[in-house]
């Protein structure tokens, strides 16, 4: 049955329309969780607000389990679901540059749009920065091409790389997340916190 669009059950235009509605739900959840506030987001790096950790990992676990169960029930063909390719070098270097951007700007791209949507000027300026950064990469791409293409591993699953089943990996990740949530709750009690 699923995924609907790759299986041709819904048309390309329907898929775009549904993308818009999925986006509304995405924006709603991010904003109502407090992701429109850079000070709330940055709290994860200082311990005064750990909403990022809780939402991010609960979300990742939910979708991971959802896909595993849907696949088990035969509702979705995981071979047709896009799995991000792994280019080790660019994933690390790109991630590090993004991490620097995160601690400076207090937003990531998705959350900056949420902030801008409710009137945060710092969110709008962050978006201007995104454009500059992406233009910058596009214009200087020949300089980074080697780095961009280095250490390509295909589309490996982390569970395969670690030599365990998807289910066992999901279970371990849930245990790790529960441990992190406990630390997060402790940190929020320890460090002063106010609402933004």
């Amino acid at each position, binding site marked *: 049955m699923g995924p609907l669009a790759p299986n041709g059950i819904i048309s390309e235009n329907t898929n775009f329309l549904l993308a818009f509605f999925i986006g*509304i739900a995405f924006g709603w959840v991010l904003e*109502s*969780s407090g992701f429109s506030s850079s000070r709330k987001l940055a709290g994860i*790096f200082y311990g005064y607000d750990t909403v990022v950790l809780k939402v991010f990992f609960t*979300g990742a676990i939910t979708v991971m389990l959802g896909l595993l169960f849907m696949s088990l029930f035969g509702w979705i063909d995981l071979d047709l679901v896009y799995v991000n390719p792994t280019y080790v070098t660019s994933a690390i270097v790109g991630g590090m540059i993004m991490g620097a951007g995160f601690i*400076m700007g207090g937003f990531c791209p998705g959350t900056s749009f949420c902030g801008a949507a409710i009137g945060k000027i710092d969110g709008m300026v962050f978006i201007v920065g995104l454009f500059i950064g992406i233009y910058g990469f*596009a214009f200087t791409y020949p300089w980074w091409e080697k780095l961009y293409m280095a250490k390509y591993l295909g589309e490996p699953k982390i569970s395969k790389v670690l030599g365990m089943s998807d289910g066992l990996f999901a279970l371990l990740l849930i245990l790790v997340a529960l441990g992190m949530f406990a630390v997060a709750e402790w940190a929020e009690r320890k460090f002063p916190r106010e609402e933004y």
Partner: protein
Amino acid sequence: MSNNSKTERSRRYLNPYLGGVLLGLVLLAANFISGRGLGASGAVKSVVATSIEAVNKNSVNTMPFMEEYAQAHGTSPMKSWLVFQMLGVLVGGFLSGAVAGRLKLKVEHSPKITSRRRLIFALLGGIFFGFGSQLGRGCTSGAALSGMGVLSLGGFITMMAIFGTAYALAYFFRKNWI
């Protein structure tokens, strides 16, 4: 006081674990309906590709990075899944903010720094994040969260690189936040 502020807080924002489950369900819907994850930086890239093409019809073809992208997106890079999804994010964020009474034009910053300083760092952060998202093939949404959801090794690597670096640098930027 602390009791009052606690009820106040719970009314204002979703419980984060509930928010996480809802976020996961939205991402699950994207995977089930469209066979792909969520994203953000990719939509900005579509606008960038379109604008470059508009300024100079041939320049996209002279830029290998954009050429590859234009080929993958057929006639117009604006007719992309992520562009429609990001338009939805703006609407959804606005609606949530409107319902919760959070619509307000302002620069949010720590009382210890000026608006000007906040905006300079927001711009710098955006530049870094934009650049890094292209090198890393996606941002926190598209590479880290959506990648982790489908157990992509690259998704986990990107997630650890983003958060690890932000933690490593947190000390140097602490004045901006605490």
